[in-house]
């Protein structure tokens, strides 16, 4: 479904990704593992069009989408739920969700999608009139996920969706990812909790300072000593 080949990405003059290559098959959940600053968010930004790669190619469902603007990619079904929520603070929760369905491909089904988002996060329904900036951290995260779903993604990119959530909610978010996948959505997940992520994902790859150093089946990687020592050690505490 998604083929990323030989991507180099830069912030100004500073290079953040070197020759990043991976593929995601339809219906899969793939997780990206890496230390802080390894380039996980940069990879997702590049796929979603926020950052234009200097080199390399991104193919989505057989079509070259390299360098397309984010709004075009959203219309094709590539949706990023970015790191740190990025809500519109002065808009109400309802407006945030409705604007999630701004793309012309998502607009017709807006009311219906909204109902399924409320079914997934009932708490949001009680908060519709509240300004998003005044929500609690966890509520904001739910709102951000809900807004992403409003765009009716076919490929959903999630950047640390469970950040700042209470353990019970983390479990809920992971459950909801499962049900999202069951609806036929392909998922690329970046998550600090590597143990959780590997348990959920089909495949995974590791980024180290902007390069892919390891990739394979999630179940294999979970037992790989390099992963265990490097990334699972702290997460197990």
């Amino acid at each position, binding site marked *: 479904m998604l083929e990323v080949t030989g991507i180099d990405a830069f912030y100004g003059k500073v290079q953040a990704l070197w020759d990043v290559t991976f593929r995601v098959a339809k219906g899969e959940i793939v997780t990206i593992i890496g230390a802080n600053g390894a380039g996980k968010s940069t990879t997702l930004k590049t796929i*979603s069009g926020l950052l234009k790669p200097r080199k390399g190619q991104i193919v989505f469902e057989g079509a070259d989408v390299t360098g397309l603007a984010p709004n075009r990619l959203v219309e094709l079904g590539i949706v990023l739920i970015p790191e740190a929520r*990025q809500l519109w603070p002065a*808009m109400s929760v309802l407006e945030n969700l409705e*604007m999630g369905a701004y*793309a012309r491909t998502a607009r017709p089904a807006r009311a219906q999608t909204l109902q399924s988002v409320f079914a997934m996060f009932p708490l949001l329904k009680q908060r519709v009139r509240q300004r998003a900036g005044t929500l609690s951290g966890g509520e904001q995260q739910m709102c951000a996920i809900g807004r992403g779903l409003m765009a009716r993604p076919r490929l959903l990119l999630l950047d640390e969706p469970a950040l700042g959530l209470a353990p019970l909610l983390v479990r809920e978010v992971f459950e909801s990812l499962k049900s999202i996948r069951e609806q036929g959505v392909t998922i690329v997940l970046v998550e600090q909790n590597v143990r959780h992520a590997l348990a959920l994902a089909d495949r995974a790859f590791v980024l180290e300072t902007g390069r892919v150093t390891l990739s394979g089946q999630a179940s294999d990687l979970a037992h790989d000593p390099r992963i265990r020592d490097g990334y699972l050690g702290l997460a197990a505490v």
Partner: protein
Amino acid sequence: MQQLVSVTLSALLAAGLYATMAYGLAVIYGVMRIINLAHAGFMMLGAYVTFTLFSRFSLDPFIGLVVVGPLFFFFGVVLYRAVGKSMARSGATPSIESLLLLFGVWLVLQNLAYVIWTGDTQSILTSYTMKSIEIFGVHVGVPSVFVFLASAASLIFLNVLLKRTYLGKAIRAVTQNRDAALLSGVDADRISATAFGLGTAFAGIAGGMLSTLMAFTPDFGRSFLLKAFCIIVLGGMESVTGVALGALVLAVLENVLGAYTPVPTSLQDAVSFALLFVALVAFPQGLPALFARFERKAIR
């Protein structure tokens, strides 16, 4: 007492105009993070176009605004399409290039006006220019009342646009968090063009309204640009309400100082400049942030 009513009334009437004028700057800054130095030029042009519609086609200046608004919107969009790429937003602060470019646009507009309308002072004299009506026992010029009503109408239109339509919500979304807007499928380029058109239209309308209140030359507009800066620094760029609030503060201050202190009217521009300075030093985030701080204190 009479004077208090009179001061309050003229402050209120001026605030409407000021808000219209300042909103033009605010919407462009909000969406594109550039400071439209050509704003004064658009106001001047708005005054002249209104003047031409009046003198050539005997169109009433306030009806003329209905022409000026869409015309200037179109003009702004075309201008954005022509030079917009070099104004493209690069970061959180306006680029020097965009400032120079827009300053250049202002100079070109000024020279164009000299060529078309000469440097002679012009003014619009309608049948009601000298008339006044009595409100709460105070005499108020009819044009000022019309200006207030027209301002109120444009601000209400704007508020409905921003709050009720997809386009308006997209403008607010880009203002509040551009990346999030892009990721939701908003076409940043289209919204920038629209915002630039809206900002230009509001400048043109403000200029058209000013032309019914005072005489003008191609140099017209500079002091109003300063006032507009002052207002958006006070009121913030996020909301129509914030801008209206900033406009009211400036208008009240100007009128109070004019009525109760010996500060001569010729120093009125110094008032907005002083206020701008104080505002930047004392509360750089603008009035809304100040209120938010009070609110939080009150809750605690």
